[in-house]
């Protein structure tokens, strides 16, 4: 082909009547690359794929296929460059699998002629790639959903187009068939140098198989890059409206995410400080992790600190996208960390103190809590006197706070209830949170 770049989308807009389904989207996809298109429902993934296929006309911008403007290609020429795997095959007639895959050869047939040996070989090869070689004489209605999608892939492969577009091809499949299908697609990409662009709903699947993830939201391109840079807690919150915990697969180093809860509407596009809170948690060594996680799940805006970097609680805060003040490990909390912690503390409506062992290095955290001068905002969670390694200073401080109105609680439900109560309903913050 004339250009090495299979797909170039340049400032593409697509309209449905007055509605703009796609707004100046630009992206490229190269040979040997599997690109995932991600985005919530209605974000424009399918629209983008359909525009690349020539099923929708661009209102602005253009789609170039191997260097040629898509609108200049005939439908047959396009079919020789781009193949398509739809979300679902819904066959009505019980066509033999081999015949079904031969449908993919249409664009290669000279007018008014039948399939030649070349076409039959291509079809047989494609069936084998899809793992259906031994069933070529079966009827399509005998296939399971997963096999039907593999058959759709086989038909697309028989087309021998160097660009493969897939529209959520595993949307209706069980997990084994999901993995199987994308493994086959990736093999084609790796071994045959195909370029594949797939709309994908399952972000973990996308993170696992895609070389790049392109995120669309409301018809606009929001992010484009390798999975580990694209997937982030704030992006998932902003685009999908979901609080997640982001981890890293220790063997593949690909990110994978654990959805926690959806964020109520109305907070979705808003800045973080419009959510319920903030609630600040003082912890360390993993003592605060369950609290952080529960509070995030309950919809609170949570802050933490000061925490040593690489500490379990710091990792949890990272995964949950919680802002926190940090200090380097095994060092006393320094001036900068103290200032940042003071800032977070004074913004907090509720301060939770986790059952963290207190020594000379982190006593300053408690001192900072006392220094903001609102003991009534403090909740001491699962307080135990034996955690004091400062020779009684920490316990003395805790008694002072409790005397000043701090609460002492021992289970998370009560903690959540108390935090809710402490943030007055009807306040601008709470109203915003209810959306």
């Amino acid at each position, binding site marked *: 082909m004339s250009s090495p770049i299979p797909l170039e989308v340049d400032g593409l807009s697509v309209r449905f009547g007055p509605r703009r389904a796609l707004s100046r989207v630009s992206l490229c996809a190269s040979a040997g690359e599997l690109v995932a298109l991600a985005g919530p429902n209605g974000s424009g993934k399918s629209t983008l794929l359909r525009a690349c296929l020539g099923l929708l006309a661009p209102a602005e911008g253009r789609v170039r296929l191997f260097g040629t403007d898509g609108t200049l290609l005939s*439908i047959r020429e396009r*079919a020789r460059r781009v193949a398509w795997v739809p979300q679902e095959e819904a066959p009505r007639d019980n066509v033999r699998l081999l015949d079904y895959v031969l449908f993919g050869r*249409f664009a290669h047939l000279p007018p008014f002629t039948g399939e030649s040996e070349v076409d039959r070989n291509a079809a047989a090869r494609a069936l084998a790639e899809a793992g259906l070689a031994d069933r070529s004489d079966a009827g399509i209605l005998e296939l399971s959903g997963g096999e039907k999608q593999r058959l759709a892939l086989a038909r697309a492969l028989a087309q021998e187009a160097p660009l493969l577009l897939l529209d959520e091809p595993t949307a209706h499949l069980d997990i084994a068939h999901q993995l199987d299908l994308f493994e086959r697609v990736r093999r084609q990409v790796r071994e045959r140098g195909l370029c594949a662009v797939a709309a994908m709903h399952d972000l973990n699947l996308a993170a696992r198989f895609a070389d790049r993830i392109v995120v669309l939201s409301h018809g606009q391109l929001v992010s484009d890059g390798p999975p580990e840079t694209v997937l982030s807690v704030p992006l998932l919150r902003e685009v999908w409206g979901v609080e997640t915990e982001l981890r890293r697969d220790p063997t593949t180093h690909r990110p994978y995410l654990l959805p926690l809860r959806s964020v109520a509407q109305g907070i979705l596009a808003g800045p973080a400080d419009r959510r319920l809170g903030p609630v600040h948690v003082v912890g360390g060594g993993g003592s605060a992790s369950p609290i952080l996680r529960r509070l995030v799940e309950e919809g609170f805006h949570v802050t933490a600190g000061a925490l040593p970097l690489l500490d379990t609680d710091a990792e949890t805060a990272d995964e949950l996208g919680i802002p926190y003040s940090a200090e380097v490990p095994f060092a006393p909390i320094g001036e900068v960390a103290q200032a940042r912690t003071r800032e977070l503390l004074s913004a907090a409506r509720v301060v939770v103190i986790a059952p963290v062992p207190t020594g000379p290095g982190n006593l300053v955290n408690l001192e900072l809590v006392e220094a903001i001068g609102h003991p009534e905002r403090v909740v001491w969670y699962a307080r135990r006197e034996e955690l004091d390694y400062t020779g009684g200073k920490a316990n003395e401080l805790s008694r002072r706070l409790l005397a000043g109105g701090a609460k002492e609680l021992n289970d998370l439900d009560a903690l959540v209830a108390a935090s809710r109560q402490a943030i007055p309903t009807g306040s601008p913050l709470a109203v915003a949170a209810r959306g």
Partner: protein
Amino acid sequence: MLAGVSIPLGAEVRILLHQTSFGLLFPSACPSETLPLRCAAWTEILWDAVVPEVLLALLVGAALGLSGATLQGTFRNPLADPYLLGISSGGTLGAAFLFIFRVGLAEANLVLPLLAFLGSLGTGALILLASRYLGGSIETLLLVGVALANVLSAVLSVVLLYNPVGSIQVSFWLLGGVGGASWGRDGLVLGGLLMAGAPLMLFGRQLNLLQLGPEVAQSLGVDARRVRHRLLLLASLATSVAVAFTGVIGFVGLIAPHVVRRVWSSNYRAVLPGSALVGAAFLLLARDLSVIAAPPGNLPVGLFTAFAGAPFFFLLLLRHRRGVYMGGGG
């Protein structure tokens, strides 16, 4: 068996062979014991009335079967047939105008088919035109056709309300028949059938691909919209030719493709010629039944297509409830 008049079978065969071999096989049409006058009458009945009628039944059946198969494939709808879209209603309306203006019978022989033909072809064209302005999805096309059919039959009702005499003639027209066949008419129908059928046979592959849905078909290289429009035009042509000479004969176009799909193949490269064959055989059968049931041949064939076709169709549906039908070749 073929005619209302009983001619000995041997004589029938002999006359037919004589006529088709231009007198080479049998120098005289009838056995020597037959009176020459009777022989001439038999020959005339067979050759100028029965044979053209049989041929007309075959040709019209083929046209309707082909048209039905094409429309079912084009619309991916097993209920589609030449009459659902109002193509035939246009023909009926065209014919009705003739009855209303009371054109003399001599002229009617020529003008009636022409008006019916133009009426139905015009309706097909109108559907295409409308779909072009309305976006042209399959559903739109189908709805436009159905709406048009309703409008046309409403217009027809109004027209007939004010012309009670015409209404009897039109109701015969509505039931359809192959009476009044002639060699000339057969030639016209054959011409029309070839004009529509020959190109249609080349669309088998495209029709197969259209069954996967317009988007997949297009991704495989089929210009779905353009192909659909061409198919609709050709199916209208085939229907119009049939409607012009026989009026409205229902059911043939609907069931012929189903029969082929159920007993042979769902591959459109087989369904198209197969439906033409089944349609031809079916209409001939209906025509023969109508002759047997009412010797003068006055019961409209259209009634028999429904009488004979519906039970047969039920039987087919029952027997092949869970059958597997495969197509060969893409």
